[in-house]
């Protein structure tokens, strides 16, 4: 699929943004920001792996 590269990046960025929002809500920066970015990276890699292995 065409959008594989940006999916990975944008999922990490989305994780950061979501973590930032939760952090400013709970006043706990930078815990959630880092955790969610990590989750975003893991999810991004999973997603890319799924997308790339599906077409074969």
């Amino acid at each position: 699929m065409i959008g594989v590269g940006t999916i990975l990046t944008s999922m990490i960025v989305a994780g950061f943004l979501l973590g930032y929002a939760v952090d400013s809500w709970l006043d706990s920066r930078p815990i959630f920001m880092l955790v969610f970015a990590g989750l975003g990276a893991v999810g991004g890699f999973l997603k890319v792996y799924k997308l790339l292995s599906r077409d074969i």
Partner: protein
Amino acid sequence: MSAEEHSSGGGTVEYIQHHLTNLCVGDCDPVTHKAVGFWALHVDTLFFSVMLGMVIILTSWRLGRSLSLDAPSGFQNFVESIIEFVQGQVKDTFPGHNPIIAPLALTIFVWVWLMNFMDLIPVDLLPLLAGAVGVNHLKAVPTTDLNTTMAMSLTVFGLILFYNIKIKGPVGYMKVFLFHPFGKFFIPVNIVMTLIEELAKPLSLGLRLFGNLFAGELVFLLIALIGGTLVVGALGYLFWFPLQVVLDLGWLIFHLLVITLQAFIFMVLTLVYLGMAHVEDH
């Protein structure tokens, strides 16, 4: 002394910044012309995107009145080929049945392509013309404004949410959030992961289009600067000007591919995301 160098370097930066500044009306900084509040309208972006939308409407309206089955005109053939191309894409990538999808895809493809196409107009022409009638800042390409691309991707995101809830039902959509990547024993992680995944969709759509077009515009500006700042004396033109023309032509031809590809990707990803919303079971 270095005053001259400094002024030429400052001129270069100023030139680029000037070209990358929108015509801002409303809550804007009077010095930098950047938006500082919510009600800051980028008039040039609005004007050009609405104008190109009108061009599409007017052209299709005029073509619609003069359609011919027996002897189609060249333009009719051209438009039909675009429509058939988009239709083929919709049939290939979209699983469900929804009469809105194909017109949406066609609109996105043509509109984004036209907005991108503004990039191929010489970078100084439109700002120069606007400057002649007293408009100081003008950024002619609507898709190099993050507001345009994010507005389009958020609209698509709204449609994704709408169809997710409509097709899967509110409960079915919740289930996607609860049990999606890792099964039922990791519910908190699943919620976060799916939220990130959903948020990444509009982000990647909007940022990809913006990034590609912004970078393309910047390269055009840098090429335009070759003839402007590197030239020393009249002889310099003999070397730098042909170089600028060759580079500009090369980048223009390459960029023609880029703008088509970006419009195409925006359309296909919209189809894919909406298709995912239309699939009943995971």
